[in-house]
């Protein structure tokens, strides 16, 4: 009986996903739930809200969930540690470098000698790409600016207090600053383009175990479809957008609008080999700037990490 109960669970069409409670992914997931997109697509979504991105990574490691949201650098490195994680693109929303209104900084050179806040630490993609770009201009940002690493919300608040000259932060934090009149000097995609890679690549994606995916290919694909549909709804239907407004946790209409705009802009419209090779190139740039710390023992980017239906 117990055995049958177990197999029951395994064969069911339930998908467990662990995400940040107030993360943007949860907007999508909420919409899937409220619009019953999961049932319509033949699976059942169960969302486990968590309080930090680290928590979701632990959940995946602990086999306590099927899907989490993360970026491909992390997946690449974990595959190096013989974890069979796979990545399915979800969003291309990326962080950016913002400066206070009226700031004298208007180029990368202008950053020299200034105090820059960097969310996500020294291995943050945005920061590494910015460094790579600056190196091309002959500036070694790592040595020539005063770096302040810290927690994203804390840094946001510090720049508001005027303690920082510029800030690299995740996109939804930047959006809140932009709503207050802060200028975006450079987004991650700008950096990528300036580095000579002409593709808009996904940044975040759904991450899951390959073994699990191979056992549940239909549910997974249905889920990915539902996710796209939900994003579509949020961007086209105000009713649906208004329904998830509480999750944005802001009452400021401008911020809300900015958030929606960035969210919609970040939808993945296509993911072809072009984007994949672009990611591969970017990875090698990151690897050369971030060094062994970032990539661990994964010297070669593993193209197998992208979800590509059952293999």
């Amino acid at each position, binding site marked *: 009986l117990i055995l049958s109960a177990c197999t029951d669970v395994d064969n069911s069409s339930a998908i467990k996903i662990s995400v*940040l*409670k*107030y993360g943007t992914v949860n907007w999508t997931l909420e919409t899937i739930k409220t619009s019953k997109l999961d049932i319509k697509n033949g699976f059942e979504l169960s969302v*486990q*809200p*968590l*309080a*930090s991105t*680290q*928590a979701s990574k*632990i*959940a995946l*490691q*602990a*086999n*306590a*969930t099927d899907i989490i949201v993360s970026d491909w650098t992390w997946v690449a490195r974990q595959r190096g540690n013989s974890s069979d994680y796979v990545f399915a693109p979800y969003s291309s929303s990326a962080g950016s470098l913002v400066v206070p209104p009226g700031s004298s900084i208007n180029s990368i050179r202008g950053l020299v000698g200034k105090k820059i806040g960097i969310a996500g630490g020294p291995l943050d993609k945005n920061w590494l790409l910015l460094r790579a770009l600056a190196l091309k201009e002959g500036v070694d940002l790592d040595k020539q600016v005063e770096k302040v690493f810290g*927690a*994203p*919300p*804390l840094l*946001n*608040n510090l720049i508001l*207090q005027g303690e920082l000259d510029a800030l690299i932060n995740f996109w939804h934090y930047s959006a809140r600053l932009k709503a207050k009149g802060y200028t975006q000097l450079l987004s991650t995609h700008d950096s990528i383009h300036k580095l000579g890679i002409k593709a808009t690549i996904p940044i975040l994606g759904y991450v899951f175990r390959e073994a699990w995916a191979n056992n549940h290919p239909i549910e997974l694909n249905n889920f990915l479809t539902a996710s796209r549909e939900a994003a579509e709804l949020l961007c086209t239907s105000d009713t649906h957008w208004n329904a998830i407004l509480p999750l944005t*946790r802001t009452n400021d209409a401008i911020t809300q609008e900015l958030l929606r705009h960035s969210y919609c802009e970040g939808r993945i419209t296509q993911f072809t080999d072009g984007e994949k090779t672009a990611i591969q190139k970017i990875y090698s740039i990151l690897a050369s700037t971030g060094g062994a710390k970032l990539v661990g023992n994964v010297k070669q980017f593993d193209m197998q990490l992208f979800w590509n239906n059952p293999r």
Partner: protein
Amino acid sequence: MPRSSFLNSTLSLGLLLLIWQVTAVLVASAVLPTPFEVLSNLNSSVQSGELQHHLGITLYRLTISFCLAMFLGIAIGLILGRQQKTNAFFDSWLIILLNVPALVTIILCYIWFGLIETAAIFAVVINKLPNVIVTIREGARNLDEELIQMAKAYRFGRLKTLAHVIMPQLYPYIMASARTGLALIWKIVLVVEMLGRSDGMGYQIHLFFQLFDITSILAYTVSFIVVIQLIEMAILKPLDKKSQRWK
């Protein structure tokens, strides 16, 4: 004439609120809300029932892990404090256990047991336990040998010696680790809940932190402190009084 204890604590809390209010007004920043803002936030969290839910769950975890950690800690601390050889052997284990970052133990617990309640509670116990052991061990090392001899001469037996001779002497150490322990467990529960639970104060507070909603964080903190004050007044203070009546 001693001022009544009620008046005393009202005065003391009043002064604290005043300092807070004045600082908040002077700073005038979203980062330090006034007491009033915090209280009204608290009120609305209570109205929505959200706070009770998360507070209840955290208290549940706190109670279980506190009891476990204190019980085991007193037992182990007593053994290590009384038996030099055992202590010499396990001393370095204790130091390691004390100094493994909470992060490491929490992650390992979650990964081994899964993201379940047991893992969370176990992680808290593991983090609190060595502190209790170390404190009680100091106490056990400083027991009054004369009274223990007396107990031996009059054949008190193990249990009676423990209850009537050793425990009353350990009392201040137990109180110290109970008081600091509640606070420590509370701090660890916050991390434990942040890293792998979908409810509890730690989960909520961390969410608020991501939104930089200090007012809500403080409201939740206040509610917890009220609970601790109640525990202090209803359990610890009377215990203190009872245990000091012979002085």
